[in-house]
């Protein structure tokens, strides 16, 4: 294929395609959830426990949870409409990998299949240690949980 035709192809096909990908990424970043949505999520969903990462559940699980914040796993976590919209925008805009929660009216991360698989090697007694206080206390063993870091290298299990 002569050089000029290749360039023409780039202009007619590749460049618009690249623009489209960029535009979609831009929409996801800017129109879907803004940095202030993220701040609202971190503050509002991180006041009673660590702000659980958006990709720990799938979007529909978050919808169920956000619809029942006044009856939230035994406590009232209700939000005003503006903060609720910001939190929803942030949690829904997260790209995969999607991890489905447990099948319940209020889905849980800690009883989901993926969570049990990832934590299969953690003995039962460890979850009950006073320094852990339950599986939902991610930060007890994942010191980077506040900033969304859960990788294996940074795990420290309290005695």
């Amino acid at each position: 294929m002569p050089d000029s035709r290749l360039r023409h192809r780039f202009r007619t096909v590749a460049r618009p395609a690249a623009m489209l990908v960029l535009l979609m990424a831009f929409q996801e970043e800017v129109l879907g959830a803004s940095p202030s949505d993220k701040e609202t999520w971190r503050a509002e969903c991180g006041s009673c426990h660590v702000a659980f990462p958006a990709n720990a559940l799938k979007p529909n699980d978050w919808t169920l949870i956000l619809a029942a914040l006044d009856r939230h796993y035994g406590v009232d976590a209700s939000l005003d409409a503006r903060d609720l919209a910001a939190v929803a925008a942030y949690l829904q805009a997260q790209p995969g990998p999607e991890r489905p929660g447990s099948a319940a009216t209020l889905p849980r991360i800690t009883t989901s299949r993926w969570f049990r698989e990832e934590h299969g090697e953690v003995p039962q007694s460890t979850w009950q240690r006073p320094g852990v206080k339950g599986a939902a206390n991610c930060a007890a063993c994942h010191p980077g949980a506040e900033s969304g870091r859960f990788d294996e290298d940074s795990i420290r299990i309290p005695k």
Partner: protein
Amino acid sequence: MQRPIVLLLTVLAASAAGAETATDLLNTYGSQPVVKGATAPVPTAAAGDRFFHARHKDWSCASCHTGDPRAEGRHAVTGKPIAPLAPAANPRRFTDFAKAEKWFKRNCNDVVGRECTASEKADVLAYLISLH
């Protein structure tokens, strides 16, 4: 051209972040009568002290904020640390009316099983402000 905009933004930010003080909030709650037309009861730290430490259903306010509101608390279910509630120990407390209202609503529902009255909130605030 830029100065007025900066000024406007500063003013907006200050009002959005809440420029109230704990005493402003005490005055707001303390001036709301229980019965329309009646005079509001005078808030007392002693009543707030009793309310704060009393077990209503399963929990008291102290279940998460500890028996000493000047100390760091710990969420009764999740174990997450909670910054001290008394303004003397934590100057950022009660500087934002909307934030105080949000938490009074949630925590009173959880502890007492209903929202707190303005007079109960005023008593709790009088108690928290009295701690040094």
